[in-house]
C-alpha cells in the first residue's frame, strides 16, 4: 500500500444501506471467499490456526452499504453460505471505511473496537484467532497499478 494514501473515516448516507439491503447479497460473499481462498493458495495463512476455523460460521456486515456476507471454512477451503440456518459463530459489523482501513492496515482492530467503530460478537476466542491470524500474514507487495499515469 502506498504510504501517502490514507483512507478517511466516512459514513455513507442512510439511503445507501436501505438500498443495499434490497440488492442480492451473493456478490459480497463470493468476493470475500475468493480473496480468502487466494490467500490460502499462496500459503499465507498458518495451518495450525486454520484447523480451528473448521465448520465455523462467519458473518461480515457492512453497516452503511447494507451488504452482508456469510461464509465457512471446510476441508481446506473457504465457502460462501448463502442462506445461513443458524446464528454465526463470529460476526463482524462496521462501516465501509473501517473495513477498508483494516484491510489497508491503516488502523488497528483494537483501536476501532475501543472507538466503537468495529463490532465483534459471538465466540471471542475465535475472533482473536482470526484477528491474530490476519495480523501475522505477510502480504506480498502488490504491483503498482498504472492508474494515474495512463
Amino acid at each position: 500500500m502506498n504510504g501517502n494514501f490514507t483512507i478517511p473515516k466516512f459514513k455513507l448516507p442512510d439511503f445507501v444501506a436501505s438500498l443495499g439491503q434490497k440488492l442480492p447479497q451473493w456478490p459480497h460473499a463470493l468476493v470475500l471467499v475468493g480473496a480468502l481462498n487466494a490467500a490460502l493458495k499462496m500459503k499465507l495463512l498458518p495451518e495450525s490456526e486454520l484447523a480451528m476455523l473448521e465448520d465455523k460460521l462467519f458473518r461480515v456486515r457492512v453497516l452503511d452499504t447494507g451488504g452482508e456476507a456469510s461464509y465457512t471454512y471446510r476441508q481446506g477451503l473457504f465457502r460462501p453460505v448463502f442462506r445461513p440456518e443458524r446464528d454465526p459463530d463470529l460476526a463482524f459489523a462496521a462501516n465501509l471505511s473501517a473495513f477498508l482501513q483494516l484491510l489497508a492496515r491503516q488502523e488497528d482492530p483494537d483501536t476501532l473496537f475501543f472507538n466503537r467503530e468495529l463490532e465483534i460478537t459471538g465466540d471471542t476466542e475465535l475472533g482473536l484467532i482470526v484477528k491474530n491470524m490476519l495480523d501475522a500474514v505477510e502480504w506480498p507487495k502488490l504491483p503498482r497499478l498504472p492508474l494515474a499515469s495512463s
Partner: protein
Amino acid sequence: MSSLPDLVCPAGSLPALKAAVDNGADAVYLGYKNDTNARNFAGLNFDAKSMAEGVRYAHAKGREVLMAINTFPQAGRTADWHAAVDGAVDQGVDAIILADIGLLDYATRKHPQQRLHLSVQGSATSYEAINFCQREFGVRRAVLPRVLTLAQVEHVIKNTSVEIEVFGFGSLCVMNEGRCWLSSYACGESPNTVGACSPAKYVKWDKKPGAMETRLNGILIDRFGDDEPAGYPTLCKGRFEVQGEIYYALEEPTSLNVLELLPDIIKIGVKAIKVEGRQRSPTYVAQVTRTLRAALDAARDSAERFHVKPVWQAELAKVSEGSQATLGAYNRPWR
C-alpha cells in the same frame, strides 16, 4: 547530558516485529506461542521458525531482540520454562526478560554469558530488590513497575548500576504487577498461571439495543452506551455497583502516555522506554513506534526547546484504550 533511552517496542507477530524495526525501535520484545509469556493469546506470538526470522531481521538492521519469559513456572512443569530459556539462548536473542527468581537462578547457572533483564512482573520497585537480583543473578536491566513517581524512579537510578527501563506508552491496568489474581477470581486463569489476563474464551461481548455488555465468565464487567469508548474486558477496568453507586471502582480504562515527561526521563538517566501492546496489530506498533521515535529524536536534538507536537498526541490518543491518556504514577503527589 544523558544518552537517549532505547525505544523498546512490542512484537506479537513477525509483521509487528518488522513494523517496529522499520519505524525506529532500538529493540523489540517478543515471546513464544505458549504460557511461558504473559501475552499467551490464541494466534499470537512466535514459533521457533518465525522467531529465527525475526531475530535475523532485527539483527540485520542493528536492533536488539529481547525475549519475554515472564510468567511463573507452574507446579510439575518447570521443564517447559527451562526449555524456553534454553531455546531463547539458542535463538541468539540479546536478552531474556525473566520474572521468576527460580528461573533467574536457572538461567544464570546454565547460561552465565546470557544477558538477563528483570521483568516488570518481577515487581521490584526498590533499588534493594534490584541490586539483590544483580548480585545473585547478574541481572543487567530491570523494568520498573508502573507505580513509581518520577522522583522515585530517579532515586532508584541513583542507587543502582543496573540499567532501568520504564513504561512509556500503552494500556494501563490495576498494576499489581506479577501479583495480580483478579482474572483468576473471575475465571480461574490469570497472567501468572496461564499467561493471559481475562482469556478470550471467557469473554462475551453482547450487543443489545443502545448498549454493549461485557461479561467475563458470566460476570457482568461493564455496559457501554453506543457512543462510549470501550476497554479490555478485565475485572480491574469494570464498572461495579458499590454502595448504591455504579462506577469504575478499581481503575478506568486508560493509557499511559509519557510524551510530556520525555526530557525529564532522559535527564534522570533512564536506559530504555518500553511500549506496551504485544496483543495489538502491526498497525498499532508502526503508529506508536513512529511517534515515539520522532519525539525522542526531537528531545535529543533540543531538550530545552522540546515541546509535545499536537500530531504526536493525536496519533497516540487515537490508539489509546478508553480514548484517554494519563501520565500514570509518574507525576502523582503521593508516595
